[in-house]
């Protein structure tokens, strides 16, 4: 029997993910992705005040800490046909944008970099040569030989002390690490820089939302009022603080994140030919300019791409019963119509049916169910969502900056356009969209100030605040592009309370198990064919999985302890 390589826990992600890889020689024949934790937040949401839902939904995930809050208030607003003021729209855009920049940078340096960067090798680096390298790729101010010498000394003291802490038992010295010591030292230095930087830029959410993680939102607008004459509202001082943060974000992205990505990628061009996955991509679109109901004004366009065909963008309709459907053929759930059925979220059913091995276990039975994730499909297709999907969509629809950035990256790295469909392409796309979002933060900020100066300070529309003003029954979908991909929450409101709540999130699209037809999910498809240098040190698996930036608490969130049918909602 062929060996099964098991990686559990997959660390440096959000949540609990397990990968089992069926080997054929030194190659992965089949990979299986399993989410191993459930909480049941959608069930907890039922019967509650829809205005509270954002706080519950937000706790689906603390890394993408605002996305579920946004999707939730948008779902309620969609159901109630609730208009929000222009300032609220802009502030939400800025908060989402700030989350992108923060999250993507942290992903690159703190969750993904150690797959490519050998911390121990950095000890061998020559600080002077490191400084030369840093200055050759960027004009970032912290690049003197002394700076890198200090950094190296700190690292050395740490390693020599013998207590490696978070760096212990990793795959240091693995031949898959290709960076020269100087590049490693530079990257480790930026790992620490990014930790400081993220603390500063995370304050944008605190200014508008009161805290970070888990800032506050409000159905009908945003909770922070604007009053240039008040200390207790968004005033000139706070707006200038926001401006500083945007400047700080753009500087770091332009001078550190983008150059580092290109520098690291240049040593790993072979990863531009593996880890593709399914070749189908989907976006819901986000960053509205004229309101959420006009996708043509979104910064991130909406659409679906099948089989890498960028010339043909398909329309996506979240309310269409035949488009988004969830399968549970290999998930620990049951449907009244049987395991082979698939359902639209409005009609979703959730019946828990754990038939896996009793813990502690060493291997899952992948012939049966093997994950707490469902398998969402679009018109029956396995779809990849996330930065790569968005960059491809912008590229395909002619977004000038996206085209320019993609072409620049390809030519700098001297790789073909097909290299986008890969582990490397996914990681690079994340960097490129970060730059696009960071640049747009400035635009939204300018627009916000322009709007305030024109005399409009409204941030909240109170007209539908009282539940007594709502229809007896309403339903809606709140969508957004989360940093990890397209996210949507479906809500059904009856008599002022939540009758049903369903979230289909990016990592469910990407990390879900096989469907009824045996089609693997994007993670599983992307891993197939990987060659493992040493099955005991499967750094190759980590590289491709991390390129998706998994968020498993997001992906799994439904359960029912009694095995009762919980969610059965008819379309009104």
């Amino acid at each position, binding site marked *: 029997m062929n060996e099964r390589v098991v990686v559990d826990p997959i660390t440096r992600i959000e949540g609990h993910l397990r990968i089992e890889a069926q080997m054929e020689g030194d190659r992965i024949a089949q990979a299986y992705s399993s989410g191993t934790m459930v909480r049941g937040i959608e069930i907890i949401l039922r019967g509650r005040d829809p205005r509270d839902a954002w706080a519950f939904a937000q706790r689906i995930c603390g890394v993408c800490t605002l996305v579920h809050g946004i999707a939730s208030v948008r779902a309620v607003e969609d159901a109630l046909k609730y208009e929000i003021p222009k300032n609220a729209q802009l502030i939400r855009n800025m908060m989402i944008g700030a989350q992108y920049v923060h999250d993507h940078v942290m992903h690159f340096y703190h969750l993904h970099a150690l797959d490519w960067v050998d911390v121990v090798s950095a000890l061998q680096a020559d600080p002077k040569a490191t400084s030369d390298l840093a200055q050759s790729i960027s004009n970032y101010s912290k690049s003197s030989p002394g700076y890198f010498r200090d950094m190296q000394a700190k690292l050395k003291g740490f390693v020599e002390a013998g207590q490696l802490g978070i760096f212990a038992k990793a795959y240091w010295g693995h031949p898959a690490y290709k960076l020269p010591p100087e590049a490693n030292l530079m990257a480790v230095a930026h790992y620490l820089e990014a930790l400081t930087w993220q*603390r500063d830029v995370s304050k944008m959410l605190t200014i508008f939302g009161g805290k970070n993680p888990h800032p*506050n939102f409000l159905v009908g607008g945003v*909770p922070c009022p604007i009053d240039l004459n008040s200390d207790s509202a968004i005033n000139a001082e706070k707006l200038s603080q926001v401006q500083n943060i945007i400047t700080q974000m753009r500087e770091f992205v332009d001078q550190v994140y983008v150059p580092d990505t290109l520098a690291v990628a240049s040593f790993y061009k072979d990863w531009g030919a593996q880890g593709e996955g399914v070749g189908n991509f989907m976006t819901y679109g986000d960053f509205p300019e004229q309101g959420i109901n006009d996708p043509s004004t979104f910064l991130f366009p909406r659409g679906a791409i099948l089989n890498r065909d960028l010339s043909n963008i398909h329309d996506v309709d979240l309310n269409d019963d035949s488009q988004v459907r969830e399968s549970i053929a290999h998930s620990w759930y049951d449907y009244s119509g049987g395991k082979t059925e698939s359902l639209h979220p409005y009609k979703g059913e959730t019946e828990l049916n754990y038939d896996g091995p009793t813990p502690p276990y060493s291997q899952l039975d992948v012939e049966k169910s093997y994950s707490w994730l469902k398998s969402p499909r679009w018109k029956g297709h396995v779809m990849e969502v996330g930065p790569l999907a968005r960059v491809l969509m912008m590229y395909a629809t002619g977004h000038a900056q996206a085209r320019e950035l993609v072409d620049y990256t390809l030519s700098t790295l001297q790789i073909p356009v097909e290299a986008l469909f890969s582990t490397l392409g996914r990681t690079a796309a994340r960097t490129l969209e970060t730059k696009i979002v960071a640049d747009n933060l400035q635009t939204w900020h300018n627009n916000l100030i322009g709007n305030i100066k024109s005399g409009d300070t409204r941030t909240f529309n109170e007209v539908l605040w009282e539940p007594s003003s709502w229809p007896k029954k309403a339903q809606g979908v709140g969508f957004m592009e989360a940093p990890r991909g397209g996210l949507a929450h479906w809500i059904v409101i009856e008599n002022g309370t939540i009758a049903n709540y369903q979230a289909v999130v990016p990592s469910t699209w990407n990390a879900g198990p096989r469907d009824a037809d045996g089609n693997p999910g994007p993670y599983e498809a992307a891993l197939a064919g990987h060659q493992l240098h040493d099955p005991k040190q499967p750094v190759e698996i980590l590289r491709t999985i991390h390129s998706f930036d998994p968020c498993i608490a997001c992906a799994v969130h439904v359960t029912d302890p009694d095995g009762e049918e919980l969610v059965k909602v008819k379309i009104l």
Partner: protein
Amino acid sequence: MRKDQTLGAYLFSQGVSRRGFLKFCSATASLMALPPTMVGRVAAALENARRPSVIWLSFQECTGCTESLTRSHAPTVESLIFDAISLDYHHTLQAAAGHGAEAAREAAMEENAGEYLLVVDGSIPIGNPAYSTIAGISNLDMLKESAANAAAIIAVGTCAAYGGIPHANPNPTGAVSVSDIIKDKPIINVSGCPPIPVVITGVLAHFLTFGSIPELDELGRPKAFFGQSIHDRCYRRPFYERGQFAKSFDDEGARQGWCLYELGCKGPTTYNACATLKWNEGTSFPIGSGHGCIGCSEPDFWDKGSFYRPIAAGLWGSRDALLGAAAAGAAIGIGTALAARSKKKRANAAKETEST
């Protein structure tokens, strides 16, 4: 810094002066919410403190607590990791994965038996062990195994401290808190959803400094941070006293920073340090940014009615129940009165018959 080296010796070897050390101590005392008069004691304790091994377990969680940890500026997460503690197991931050990660946890437990600090975020499902597993091991088993030789446990976040959102009604997975399972170890509850960054590091600093747990309130939280309610320390309190309340988000009162009590603020029944420490290097806190406190550091705060329902409004259901009761009361009242009258009539009639 070697394991057996004290923090004082370590800083000294790094060329930090006594003056620098004293600065470090007064900042640390402030961080631990200790009065400035305690700096001397902090200095004496810190000088001899050793770098403890910390094992951080994540169960039914959203990683918000870890994200919060990384936002701490005093001490920063990097100085914590490099100088103050040995973070030997932490899913989100550690380089190793799979077998390597588990090996790191086991090695830390063995080498530091009886001395390591166990930090837990997330609740533990007891409905079915398979509701949450790591490396094929249920959370329950992993907690028990890791707690057995721990010096103390810090339950970070409301989920680990009190069950949190997975525990919210109807608690689909049977989620419980750390203290529901572990009874024989000192447990510090650092609640909040998530806790304030510097409260997490402040409690770690306290353990590092004194090697003991701080004074706790009846809910197991450090009094230094959770001793007073948000309301008591809120800068909007004077508006409450004067009866000036924001009636709606974005009304004139809201813009002027009036009290958010009527918009459902749970500050009066919530104990945390948000109003003084504030969030993200003192940038703001929920009330400072216009939203009422949702009470996230209190047990079962998810199940205390809408976040927008004022505390004074009670938790009883709808007015329909009251209307129903009114109707029933009226019916009973009229019914008994009628009954009494007809009884009286019958009695009178009987009297009349008797007298004739």
